[in-house]
């Protein structure tokens, strides 16, 4: 007892004041890992000023970017998903919908409405990847179909900005059927001689790519967006090898003839305006 008694008091850490950094002042770019002042990214339309990486943006932000200020009139804002299968995995679908609605954004994974681009009337549908991964269930399929029908009715060009993981598994077979429904509506639009422009943004995969997103008279893509049918993980597991660099990115799709052009966010509105004016002979 007490053979090795400490003669000195133990060292205690000195109380220092930690510098309090408010969240979100700095953002690390997912592509170049550069740490950038968030406001600078925002000023640059959510594009990394160092490497031109296009950050994902919400449906509202995109509408502001592309349509004439104040021209947007939303359609079907009150349409919400229902859990008709009582689907349950680790969470109930019902609760997932509730949680997603609470997070804000639109009523589901797509926001649709009418507006103008440089004065030219258009019908737009814009995906919100933040709402359950932009997945397409009954609501998304129905809203997009109605948007196409609105285009038919008003004889306006139709635009869809996709950003989606694909069909919504929680709605099982009915989510699959949205692919057929939306594509069939596009057949009518085509027969009526109206333009459909599909803009693919990061990421667009699965049932969304395999329906309206690939059916544009013109398919545009933002730089470096992931675009494909099967997800990269599924392909890797199937073929048991690593995928080549740049696989399923916009540039790869351009090279393989699946998209017509890659358009940077800064030039999107101008390019859309130009293309639509040619097609509508304005």
């Amino acid at each position, binding site marked *: 007892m007490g053979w090795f008694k400490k003669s000195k008091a133990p060292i205690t850490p000195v109380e220092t004041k930690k510098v309090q950094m408010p969240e979100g002042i700095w953002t690390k770019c997912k592509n170049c890992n550069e740490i950038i002042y968030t406001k600078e990214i925002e000023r640059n339309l959510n594009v990394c000023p160092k490497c031109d990486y296009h950050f994902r943006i919400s449906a509202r932000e995109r509408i502001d970017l592309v349509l004439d200020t104040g021209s947007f009139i939303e359609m079907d804002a009150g349409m919400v998903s229902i859990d008709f299968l009582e689907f349950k995995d680790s969470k109930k679908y019902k609760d997932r919908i509730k949680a997603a609605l609470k997070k804000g954004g639109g009523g589901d994974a797509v926001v649709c409405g009418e507006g103008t681009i440089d004065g030219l009337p258009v019908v737009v549908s814009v995906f919100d990847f933040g709402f359950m991964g932009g997945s397409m269930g009954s609501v998304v399929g129905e809203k997009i*179909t109605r948007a196409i029908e609105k285009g038919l009715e008003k004889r306006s060009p139709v635009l869809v900005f996709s950003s989606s993981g694909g069909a919504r*598994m929680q709605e099982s077979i009915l989510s699959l059927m949205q692919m057929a429904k939306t594509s*069939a509506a596009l057949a009518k639009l085509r027969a009526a001689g109206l333009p459909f422009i599909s803009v693919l943004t990061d990421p667009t995969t699965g049932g969304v790519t395999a329906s309206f997103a690939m059916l544009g008279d013109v398919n545009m893509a933002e730089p470096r967006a992931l675009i494909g049918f099967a997800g990269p993980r599924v392909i890797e597991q199937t073929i048991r090898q690593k995928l080549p660099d740049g696989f399923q990115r916009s540039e790869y799709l351009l090279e393989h003839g699946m998209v017509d052009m890659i358009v940077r966010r800064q030039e999107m509105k101008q390019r859309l305006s130009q293309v639509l004016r040619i097609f509508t002979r304005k």
Partner: protein
Amino acid sequence: MQFYLEFEKPIVELEQKIRELREYSTDKVDFSGEIKKLEKKAEKLREEIFTNLTRWQRTQLARHINRPFTLDYIQMNFTEWFELHGDRNFRDDPAIVCGFARLDGEPCCVIGHQKGRDTKEKVYRNFGMPNPEGYRKALRVMQMADQFGLPIFTFVDTPGAFPGIGAEERGQAEAIARNLREMAAIKVPIIVTVTGEGGSGGALAIAVGNRVLMMEYSVYSVISPEGCAAILWSDGTKGPQAAEALKLTAQDIMALGNVIDEVIAEPTGGAHTDAKKAAENVKKVLKRHLAELKKLSPEELVEQRYQKFRAMTKVEEAQ
């Protein structure tokens, strides 16, 4: 080929016993009473097992290796079949067969996914998973049927479109999407039968029909139960749970109301236990639906098909 699912085993064992008894029967020893009793027992057992199948067991049945495939149905139900090959762009895809034939004398177009039974054929058919050229071939032949005014029968049986590098390179998504749009505009009757696995977009790409029918033990889903489990449960072995949640059986989908038109009965024990009977049932139903659709004009057929898919919506709308 001998292949049994776990839950089929008790029935198979009983049948084996009956066979043995028959072999031992001679003029002197008569087992006929015994045999009759066992046959009755087997019948009862089969009914018991097959009325209480889980969704996962039904999925396994839908994938049963001895189930009739598209070419089996063509051979049993159609005459004068000839196959057409290739998409005129890249190559012929053996995972989809396309051609023309007659159904009780009536000329028609037949298209379907094709799986293989032995290893060599399975690989040749790519396990029934088409590449883009398969869908493009199917569209080429469907548009040909449209050109000649012939009704189209499609048979759906695929785990899904093939997820490979080449498939992505050549536009798997575009090929499926284009089929969905173009099928909507075809002016002849299209009658779809899901015979086994209706695997997601890979199935839908030949399934936009005026009528969509499902065999009693077939399944149809937006994703395979294994794939769904891997994503939502982060565990690919939770397939049985995912199958329950996805409600993917013919009966489940019929209950949704407007996705499919009819469930085609199979012999107790599944189509593979009596392929001939299964094929007869299919033929009867196909002929009935074709007779109904023949009353519609080309424009009415397009509109009926459009309205059918247009109505597939379950949402809530705030007033």
